[in-house]
């Protein structure tokens, strides 16, 4: 009985996003749609970093690096392996085009997530022995190392960028990924095991005394965060259709950290902050070349406004 309900629920979710996608592509101005998609991608990134930064208290500044891994891995998959799979699906299995691209992009997203998670594991295991600012600067360093490595790989275009990536990202996939991220991370932090993350944030030594395997949980949070960062990167790659390592500098990581800090510890806060900070530069287009100055002023102002609340507690 329960499993039938679960299946039905999944189908309902799929249908909802499917029709939402159709409705929005038909009636929403593509410009707003574009911003909506960027906002969604940023929500995924902010929530996944929230798990690491706000819930587990591990200050990571290398999120853009994991995004880059996911973006390039998925683009490589859809661009090089995709056409083969497509002909296999359509000719051998006689799938319609729609299902073929559905499966290809689905695979690409999973591959992006898994590779990023792998990178997260390799980076996290040694680095998470560090704390606070040291951890921040080490993760930032790893993010930059990943970027430089991609820049030197000619198979993904190097300095000339990765071109001709098929445009697969739409509201359907975006909604599904945002929903998935939210569900996984939201349920995780409210589960019994997830309390361990909070315990580590509050006091690592005490958590260890309680019998929590801190390394396991810290690395775990890092790997899960990296997984969804990779998914976010894959969505971005298949939205823009072009990749360049300039999109994944440490400034990008900092942008995501700002979202998390501004939004506070809750997931809702991070998601809202992600939306606000995506909209902000667009609203400020009015100011033309002044907009980045206004953007930074607003950022400082928001931080100072938050400070009043911290003072009162």
């Amino acid at each position, binding site marked *: 009985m329960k499993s039938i309900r679960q299946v039905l629920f999944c189908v309902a979710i799929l249908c909802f996003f499917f029709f939402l996608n159709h409705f929005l592509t038909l009636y929403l*101005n593509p*410009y707003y749609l*574009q911003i909506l998609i960027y906002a969604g991608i940023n929500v995924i990134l902010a929530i996944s970093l929230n798990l690491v930064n706000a819930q587990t208290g591990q200050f990571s500044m290398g999120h853009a690096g994991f995004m880059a891994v996911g973006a390039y891995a998925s683009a490589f998959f859809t661009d090089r392996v995709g056409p083969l799979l497509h002909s296999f699906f359509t000719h051998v299995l006689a799938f319609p085009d729609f299902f073929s691209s559905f499966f290809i992009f689905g695979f690409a997203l999973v591959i992006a997530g898994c590779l990023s998670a792998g990178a997260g594991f390799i980076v996290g295991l040694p680095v998470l022995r560090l704390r606070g600012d040291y951890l921040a600067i080490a993760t930032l360093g790893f993010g930059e190392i990943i970027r430089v490595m991609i820049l030197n790989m000619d198979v993904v275009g190097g300095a*000339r960028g990765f071109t001709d990536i098929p445009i697969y990202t739409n509201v359907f996939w975006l909604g599904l990924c945002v929903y998935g991220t939210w569900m996984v991370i939201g349920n995780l932090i409210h589960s019994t095991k997830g309390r361990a993350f909070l315990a580590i944030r509050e006091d690592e030594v005490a958590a260890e005394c309680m019998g929590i395997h801190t390394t396991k949980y810290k690395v775990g949070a890092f790997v899960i965060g990296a997984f969804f960062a990779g998914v976010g990167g894959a969505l971005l790659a298949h939205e823009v259709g072009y990749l360049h390592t300039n999109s994944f500098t440490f400034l990008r990581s900092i942008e995501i950290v700002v979202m998390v800090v501004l939004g506070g510890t809750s997931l809702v806060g991070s998601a809202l*902050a992600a939306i606000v900070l995506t909209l902000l530069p667009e609203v400020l287009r009015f100011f033309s*070349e002044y907009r980045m100055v206004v953007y930074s002023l607003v950022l400082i102002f928001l931080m100072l406004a938050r400070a009043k609340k911290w003072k009162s507690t």
Partner: protein
Amino acid sequence: MRKFLLVLAVGMGLVMGCGKKSDDVKIGVYASLTGNTATFGESMRKGIELAFEEINAQGGLLGKKVRLIVEDDQSKPEEAKTAVVKLIKRDRVVAVLGEVASSRSLAGAPECQRSSVPMVTPASTNPKVTEIGDYIFRVCFIDPFQGEVMAKFAYQTLGLRRVAVFTDVKNDYSVGLANYFEKTFLELGGKIIGEESYSEGDIEFRAQLTTIKSQKPEAIFIPGYYTEVGLIARQARELGFQGPLLGGDGWDSPKTVEIGGSAVEGCFFSNHYASDDPASVVQDFIRSFKEKYGEVPDAMAVLGYDAARVLADAIHRASSFQGAKIREALAQTKGYEGVSGRVTIDQNRNARKAAVVLKIENGRVKFFKRVEP
């Protein structure tokens, strides 16, 4: 705070919802006005604005005043895409001008192609940009042409046999130009001894230059932008390198001579035009640019101006603001007398025009040689 953020988000959504209407004809520009290549975006915008100011003073396009809508892309590819989508879908521009960098043109151009809005890029040299579709045009050289010109010039005219290449490895323009230069130079029978690299924004090049110098090349080819070339030249001379330095159109700016000083004396670079060309197109442009902005135009400004002029010319010939008709007219551009030379659009929608090789002598950039395509 959460509530505050929510209110802010909704408020911003509302602000973005409202737009203005007017009877002018709108032309969109996307440029890097902020971020690490802001200086190129600014120059290009100045060139484009000057062009349309002149056009408006002469009565506009097909009787309508042109209103430029300039959008910033923060020097990032994904922002370039947003800017283009905004220009096309919200502002409903009839044509798009931009970007300087190929990496951002490659992100923005597919959107123009999909919406059948013609796009003319002033300075994206990567051949892939115009391969995106039949609505994408350019008024600059492509990398293979310019790389070949300089390689032949180095081998045949200067008689050089051993050249080192110093590339800006984070810059697609530089990497592309270096590749084609090396290819042609090797085919001619020359030798590339030593390839070193730097990154845009660097100011310290002594390490790489020391390595280059120890291999004793006759000349160094530096396919970079003027933002770095002056310093590279200075440091090369400080370390005792005497041979000539060679470069591409990225060198074209008063900054090269200003920063490089005596270090760039006797150096050569390829360009679209010579600023000492007596032709009235060139001299008029330089004069009015100086009047308006108080500075000498660089390559980006010139190409921006020409891109705007070529587009305006096409709209005149099409006598319509429809994308498809402008596209037709653009494709038929033949021998348009631009500042950067006589522009003919070939079947790949690239500009076919002569290159000039310039020499820096006594602190001035002088015409040296003309190379037909």
